């Protein structure tokens, strides 16, 4: 990892895991893996919707049972409908133009191809049907055997082991893939929600800095300053700005005192000059990651 990457990672407050995909056009994009908690919440929401739909079926069938339908048929048809509802619910929503189930949309996560290619319909079908093997099949067998009475102790252990193995798979691979993701070649990512804020560049500079002064800092310091200038204006921010302004003045040897009322203006001008300088240097092939990296040699 170069110093620039490290700086970028720090600036992103990179507590989440990031991966890189390359779009079919050949542009690398960095994506954020969804947290386990987000995926769990999305699944719970989806299951609640599914259960609600299933209750409707239960009531319909219950009505028919009163009219003389046998219990075995009730259970059979209920099983079948619940299975179909579940499978088609997930597949329908992930194939549609919205691209995610309601639960995933609420949480803001998406399924995407692991390498950045187009997401295939077969991949969506594969990962959703594998969920049946991973979770629903063993759970329903467990429930069935619980209802059926004793004598299945080894069966319990086996089923629990099955569930634990498949759930554990998610925690033991780098990309947080469950078995369905492995088979389909997909990952689950967080949908980014970055808004475009105004440009901080001042159009007319009031304070002018020399190249020598601008050589004190690098990209990382510039972007920290950007963050600072984008903070909402309150007392704390103003104190912070004063403090930063003092430090900058000392560092770049700025002799005139900056009046307190003009601190923000001064910093903005400094930001503009610093960015113009660093961008020019970068274009000339002399990028500078932070203040610790030696400045380019000048004649």
């Amino acid at each position, binding site marked *: 990892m170069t110093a620039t990457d490290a700086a970028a990672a720090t600036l992103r407050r990179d507590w989440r895991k990031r991966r890189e995909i390359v779009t079919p056009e050949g542009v690398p994009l960095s994506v954020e893996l969804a947290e386990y908690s987000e995926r769990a919440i999305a699944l719970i929401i989806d299951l609640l919707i599914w259960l609600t739909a299933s209750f409707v079926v239960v009531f319909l069938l219950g009505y028919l049972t009163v009219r003389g339908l046998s219990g075995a048929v009730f259970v059979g048809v209920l099983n079948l409908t619940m299975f179909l509802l579940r499978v088609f619910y997930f597949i329908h929503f992930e194939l549609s133009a919205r691209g995610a189930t309601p639960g995933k949309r609420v949480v803001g996560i998406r399924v995407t191809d692991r390498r950045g290619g187009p997401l295939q319909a077969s991949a969506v079908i594969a990962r959703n049907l594998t969920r049946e093997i991973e979770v629903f099949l063993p759970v329903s067998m467990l429930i069935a055997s619980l209802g059926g009475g004793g004598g299945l102790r080894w069966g319990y252990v086996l089923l629990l082991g099955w569930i634990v193995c498949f759930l554990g798979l998610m925690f033991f691979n780098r990309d947080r893939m469950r078995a369905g993701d492995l088979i389909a070649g997909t990952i689950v990512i967080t*949908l980014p929600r970055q808004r475009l804020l105004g440009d901080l560049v001042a159009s007319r500079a009031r304070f002018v800095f020399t190249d020598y002064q601008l050589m004190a800092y690098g990209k990382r310091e510039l*972007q920290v300053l950007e963050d600072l200038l984008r903070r909402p204006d309150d007392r704390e921010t103003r104190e912070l700005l004063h403090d930063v302004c003092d430090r900058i003045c000392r560092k770049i040897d700025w002799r005139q005192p900056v009046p307190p009322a003009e601190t923000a203006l001064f910093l903005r001008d400094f930001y503009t000059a610093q*960015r113009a300088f660093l961008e020019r240097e*970068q274009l000339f092939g002399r990028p500078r990651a932070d203040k610790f990296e030696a400045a380019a040699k000048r004649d």
Partner: protein
Amino acid sequence: MSIETGIAREAGGLPPAQRPAVTLKSAEFRRTREQSWVDLERLIGITARKGVRALAPDELQRMPQLYRSALSSLSVARAIALDRNLLLYLESLSLRAYLALYSPRIGLGEAGRQFLRAFPAAVISARWHVLIAFLALALGTIAGFWLTVGDESWFTTFVPNWLSDGRGVASTRASLLNGEIFAPWPGFAVSLGHLSTYLFSHNTIIGVLAFGLGLFAGVPTVLLIAYQGLGLGAFIALHYNRGLTVDFLGWLSIHGVTELTAILLFGAAGLVLAEKMLFPDRYSRVDSLALHGRRAAEIAVGAVMMLFVAAILEGEFRQLVASTPWRFVIAAASAVGWLAYLVALRPREQAP
């Protein structure tokens, strides 16, 4: 460029118009492109909320163009701009546009049609795996038959109680004929219930297990399929000893052709997973699995579909058609039908 040392000049004394104008390449770049980003963002918003159909035709046409221009903006910005908010925004915009444009965006019906076209090709590509699964089943059947013919106590070993349903060593020819092979049709509702429970009790679980256990190097898959063969062989032997072989085969094959093919396909799908995990060729194991896993899953989905057909044949037709020759006719018809769909009439893969 000269280096000025010492105290910087202050331009504050000058009136605003005479202060030096600042032009940044990145700021200019942003000014000229910003509108197209905003447009793209709006289109993505519409797609996410209401679907692609809500877009006007010209918007639909513009969206991919705007996406590509956003990608190129991102590439340029990465080279020339140090505005972090801008870079993050462009990255997020490009990713959201990528997700919107490269998702399948099809309905269930279209997905079903695509699947029906892809399924035969997937099966053909796994023909050797099907053969291995078939050999496992055949060996199991022969062994089960051979052991049970000589000593019927093997029947209880090979066939679990809940599956034998009262049939076993104590069964007589008459009880098998009237209670099983030519048992009366119980009526639509009951047979539908039977169909559904049956689908969820035995076959799907076996098949899906055979598929999923392929992840464990395929050994459990082969064993599971061979075990199905043992049970099958035991059943055949039980009827053989009572002189009911032909009637039993008719009773079995009306749905068995479809059902056993489905089980074989589940096994083959599991074996595909196993092979691609064990021998990843020039890919990493995970990549190899992703590359071929979809195909394996397609086979498994197709097999579930076949089990539905088998369950309908079994639940509705088997006891309705109380004649062995007719049962064989239906079995042969289903075999021809599946062969035609999977092998003879499959859509050829077009040359690229």
